[in-house]
């Protein structure tokens, strides 16, 4: 059982999956922080019955804002060594979370990015793979990084680097913003393979492919302002 590795789950309308996801994670992790980003279904009631720290946004702001709130909270916890971000729709595996937790406690890098493109990538839908490749290409160009995946919700960050990262993009573009800041501030990073489980539910709940354009727009705006 990891007690100094926090799990951070941003949640928006996940009444179908959230209980299973948290029950699975709570077998491995003692500290689970859930940020309910203004859900309008019964997610809030479910969260109240679970053994988690839960932070509730009164309105829906976006995944970036949820992650930002979680980071702010976890960075103030005295026993926190690292945080693992984990999606609420059940597309991440518990084995990956365990591997990330084990690795972040012993590696020298401050961030571990999850990558769907290392190892087997047959399970990534074809169209998604193309859109992701475009977003990864531009993210790498903007940020001068050499990552194989840019928008994987599973990643591990040491608490020491949380204060160096300032997420100002409330929407999905925050992932690219993190990468941009990691590169700019010289934060050390590495990648680890993840096994993403694409079910009908997770495909429906996950990012729409057209969001790739919004991500690129955010990235462009952010690039200009910095």
């Amino acid at each position, binding site marked *: 059982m990891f007690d100094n590795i926090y799990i951070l789950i941003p949640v928006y309308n996940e009444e179908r999956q959230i209980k299973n996801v948290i029950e699975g994670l709570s077998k491995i992790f*003692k*500290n*689970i922080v859930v*940020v309910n980003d203004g859900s309008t279904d019964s997610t809030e009631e479910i969260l*109240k019955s*679970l*053994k*988690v*720290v*839960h*932070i*509730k*946004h*009164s*309105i829906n*702001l976006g995944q970036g*804002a949820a992650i*930002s*709130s979680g980071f*702010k*909270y976890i960075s103030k916890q005295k026993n926190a060594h690292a945080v693992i971000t984990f999606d609420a729709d059940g597309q991440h595996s518990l084995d990956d979370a365990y591997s990330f937790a084990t690795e972040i406690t012993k590696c020298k890098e401050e961030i571990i990015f999850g990558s769907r493109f290392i190892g087997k990538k047959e399970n990534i839908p074809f169209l998604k793979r193309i859109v992701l490749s475009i977003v990864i290409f531009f993210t790498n160009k903007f940020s001068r990084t050499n990552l194989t995946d840019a928008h994987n919700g599973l990643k591990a960050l040491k608490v020491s680097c949380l204060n160096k990262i300032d997420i*100002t993009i*409330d929407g999905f573009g925050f992932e690219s913003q993190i990468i941009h800041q990691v590169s700019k501030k010289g934060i050390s990073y590495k990648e680890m393979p993840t096994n993403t489980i694409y079910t009908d539910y997770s495909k429906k709940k996950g990012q729409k492919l057209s969001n790739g354009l919004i991500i690129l727009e955010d990235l462009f705006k952010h690039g200009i302002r910095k």
Partner: protein
Amino acid sequence: MIFKAIFITVFAIFFIYSLLRPFQSLFARLFLMIGSILGILSLIGVSYAQSVADFLGIGRAADLYLYLGLITIFLYVAFTLNRFDTLNKKISNLVKELAILNKTDNSDQK
């Protein structure tokens, strides 16, 4: 004739307003000032506006107003979107701060 007088008065008020109002940016003050002067010029004599158009190489006074109108619309949209962005950020920060303050900790629940 009465409408001409009304419009001249309105533009004159805008001009005085642009001189007296404390603006955050000099650009906004100049924009209102120049706009109101051009408004007055267009009313008291087309030849004045035509002179400005000639000076700028636009050709016709009517085109000068068309271009200025378009620039005004685009600038207004850009400034409004920027203001929305700033407002969104403030709301976002407020919601996040409140959420952390009102967090619920059930982790030690039996």
